[in-house]
């Protein structure tokens, strides 16, 4: 079992991107191990916290800068060094090997953050935001995750929290202060207030899909008959100036997956190119796979040739929600304007994968999709964590139960059971709501004191 007593290391910058990469070493032996591989003017073990040293790594691996952080004033709360070296995958790999030789262990994904959390450096919400920063690979995602760190989501949550306190106060008032000379709020008003909370929750729930787009990217499937030009189109997109190809290409058998940043948002392209190429795959198996990808896709590029312009996708469940299907007509370079005009439709995009004609329209379409889904919105509080999503759903259901109890004229202590349940579901998001706070809201608003 891994314990918090060992020393861990890992690159903390993305592989291959940028001129400089950084490797972090954290744990009780970080400085000691550092001294074994680093040749500088001063021993790292003798250094105070928050210092930078220039020097060389042994075996002439690279010239590096080493940052020293002493516990508890580091990200993880432990002794930490960060080795800043030239951005090259091979150099990173050598340094990691060296560190492991001298007693460090390769960190698991998110382990630095886990230690920061365990050492009380960050709270759970922050830890989740950090892990999302690490996992999310798009600009917008990084911005959004930052926002969450800054408490943007927390602000939104605070509104919900305040409403919950207010409604609880109104319910409790009638129970604990029955002989007071105060006017109790009628049930319909309470119902309306709870509906307001539900609306706030719904707003947040709606951002979940957006959150997924922001953090996980948008899935694009290119679908079409053999030889319609699917691979050419994908290559054309990959080679376009507007696209930055990610360093992690994933080619699984029969399916090509490419990750591309377009205007700062991650798009994941699936090309079914291989599906019908291999003759040993029977037709049905091909269709089954294409269907599977179709379900996952957010955007479907239905690529056709001009002759087959009326082709439809009846093999697929076209009524699936949230799917955006664009028909793209390829090989437009082989046609004359006159030919095209006969069957022109403004709902289609005409391109030539070969010459690049019309590609800007396709990019514009991708961008518009993202815009429509609010992916670019800067001041957006999004829910992207499944656990938060489920907590909100649970809270919503409890609130619906509460309204049901009110409508059936159950006394407030029963309504309060569900309200408390809602409060508990949201506890991780909103923090605890104590009965003291609820009483406070009563004393502040009503003249109590028989």
């Amino acid at each position: 079992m891994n314990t918090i007593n060992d020393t861990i290391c890992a690159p903390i910058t993305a592989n291959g991107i940028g001129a400089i990469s950084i490797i972090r070493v954290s744990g009780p032996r970080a400085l000691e191990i550092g001294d074994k591989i680093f040749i500088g003017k001063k021993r790292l073990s003798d250094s105070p916290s928050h210092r930078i040293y220039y020097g060389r790594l042994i075996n002439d691996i690279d010239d590096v800068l080493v940052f020293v952080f002493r516990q508890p004033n580091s990200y993880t709360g432990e002794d930490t060094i960060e080795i800043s070296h030239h951005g090259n995958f091979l150099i990173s790999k050598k340094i990691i090997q060296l560190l492991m030789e001298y007693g460090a262990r390769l960190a698991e994904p998110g382990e630095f953050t886990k230690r920061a959390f365990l050492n009380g450096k960050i709270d759970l919400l922050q830890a989740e935001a950090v892990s999302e920063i690490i996992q999310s690979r798009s600009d917008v995602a990084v911005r959004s995750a930052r926002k969450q760190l800054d408490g943007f989501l927390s602000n939104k949550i605070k509104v919900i929290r305040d409403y919950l306190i207010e409604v609880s106060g109104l319910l409790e008032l009638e129970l604990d202060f029955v002989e007071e000379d105060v006017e109790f709020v009628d049930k319909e008003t309470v119902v309306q207030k709870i509906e307001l909370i539900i609306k706030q929750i719904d707003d947040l729930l709606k951002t979940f899909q957006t959150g997924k787009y922001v953090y996980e990217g948008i899935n694009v499937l290119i679908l079409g008959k053999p030889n319609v030009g699917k691979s050419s189109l994908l290559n054309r997109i990959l080679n376009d100036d507007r696209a930055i190809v990610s360093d992690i290409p994933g080619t699984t058998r029969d399916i090509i997956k490419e990750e591309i940043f377009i205007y700062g948002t991650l798009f994941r392209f699936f090309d079914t190119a291989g599906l019908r190429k291999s003759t040993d795959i029977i037709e049905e198996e091909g269709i089954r796979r294409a269907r599977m990808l179709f379900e996952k896709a957010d955007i479907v590029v239905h690529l056709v040739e001009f002759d087959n312009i009326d082709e439809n996708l009846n093999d697929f469940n076209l009524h699936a929600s949230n799917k955006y299907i664009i028909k793209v007509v390829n090989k437009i370079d082989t046609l004359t304007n006159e030919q095209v005009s006969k069957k022109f439709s403004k709902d289609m995009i005409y391109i030539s994968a070969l010459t690049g004609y019309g590609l800007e329209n396709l990019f514009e379409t991708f961008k518009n999709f993202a815009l429509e889904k609010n992916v670019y919105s800067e001041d957006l509080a999004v829910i992207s964590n499944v656990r938060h999503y489920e907590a909100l759903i649970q809270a919503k259901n409890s609130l619906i139960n509460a309204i049901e109890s009110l409508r059936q004229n159950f006394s407030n202590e029963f309504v309060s059971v569900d309200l408390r349940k809602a409060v508990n579901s949201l506890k991780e998001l909103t923090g605890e709501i104590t009965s003291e706070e609820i009483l406070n809201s009563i004393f502040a608003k009503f003249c109590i004191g028989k």
Partner: protein
Amino acid sequence: MKSYYDIIVIGGGHAGIEASAAGARMGLEVALITMDKNAIGRMSCNPAVGGTAKGHLVREIDSLGGLIGQLADRTGIQFKMLNRSKGPAVWSPRSQNDRALYSLEALKLLTQIPNLEILEGIVTKLTIKNRRIESVFLNDVEIKTRAVIIAAGTFLNGKMFTGRVQTEGGRYGEPKVAGLTELLNEMGFISGRLKTGTPPRLDKRTIDFTSLEEQKGDEEPQFFSYLTDNYYLPQVSCYITYTNQKTHEILRQGFLDSPLFTGIIKGVGPRYCPSIEDKIYRFSDKDRHHLFLEPDGLNSDLIYVNGFSSSLPADIQLKAIRTVPGLQKVEMIRPGYAVEYDFFPPYQVDLTLETKLVEGLYFAGQINGTSGYEEAAAQGIIAGINAALKIMNKDPLILKRNEAYIGVLIDDLVNKGTDEPYRMFTSRAEYRLNLRQDNADRRLIKYGYELGLIPAWAYEHVKKKEQEIHRILEWSNITYLKPEIANEILRKYNSPEIDQSENISKLVKRKDVKLTELLEKSEYRFNEDPKISKEAIFQAEIELKYEGYIKRQTEDIQKFLENENILIPKNFDYSKIKSLSMESREKLEKIKPASLGQASRISGIRVTDLSILLVHLK
């Protein structure tokens, strides 16, 4: 007076009564020290017991074998169940009481208890040895002991205020206790200051009741104690009247001399029981406030003006109250006053109410920052029981939050502390549906019996009732009523008729439908003891009617108990866990929670802290 007692209780108020009675009835030698024998059980404030959530406390104390329920019943001159229009969980019994008789009865009950001795005098010294309590000096005479329970109420350096007039004392006409706070401070205890107030007392003979709204007690009263079957005393009414703009105007003239507004009183007062001047100051748009005129007793000419608590100058109080309908010619027998007193922030005690600093020393009642007879009595009985259990080398009695309001009370005090006099509310209990006043015996009588504070016959009664409840529940689940039989009842309550047989459990969930009727129609064989039968049907009906809610709450309780059952060793060293923030470490060190659940309720302890703790506990 002997030279040794197992337990010495200091203070003869509502906490002291329960503490000494419990200790003595559990078989130990107990001394109760009071300055004045005749002041035992004296009601300092309103002549009433119970009310929302407080009534629950009284029922619980009664089920543990305490005295407050019996005292309230024996001296009750009006009984009322509050919140009757709501669900059963928030029904709360309350009584008006004869103040003088209450004291007499308290003294009488205590005198009847063997091995309980009442000593008059003043405590001049407490000694400790090896962090254990060793002896109490009563009027400079040493008495050895193994446990001391301090229940000194508002008397520790008590100071009373009426306008600019200040009098030393803990209650009208009674001296303060000087020196005890200082003794405790010397031992290392931290003290603070709290404030509370009381309204003027009026002469009944000068009030014109004819124009006032009368408030009678319930026709069919429910008593607090399992020992009570009927009234002891004749019943009387309360009256309601209102202040007006003129009243407020006069009161405002006294603001300049108000010890509250001029900062002379430093202690924090309770927000739920503000003075009349505070009410008109903070809610200036309210043009009237209601006042309850409560009789002080059957043979007393005093009237207590509930709602008119004040520390304004006496002449202003009188002038103002004479603007109130019915009170135009009233004579004030004595003015209201505010009282400021020392308390010891309750993080200094653990869940048994023993102090963390000195073994064998317990605090109970207002000294822990609470307010109210019922809250005091609850702590008194718990302190008395635990002091006795410790001497007998037995496990302590700690009631959990899902078991009793008493548990909620003490858990709140120890973990959250209080910066105003703490009073119980039903909203403080998260498992309110289960903590009903009607099932206090089902929840607690087994403890009372095991401790020797409840007689066997009473315990047997509850056991039989429990069996009967189960029999009814089972019957209701398996017995189906045919439409022609059920519809006869349903029609009566305008409830939609059925066309297929339905079981009793389902039918009873319909609005207004009574379980008794359904049982009768199904030819259920009722228990031959009508008392058990009646009580059992009542309990079963609640469980069936509100089944869905109670089930949801039971799920919550299961979750709650998970953390409650993860125990933290008594001498756990928090300083070892470097990953805890300094602030959290200090808090945990201060409270010393007994379980992870308790730790979670300490204010300022975060989810992160709990995860860290959990990692280190495993």
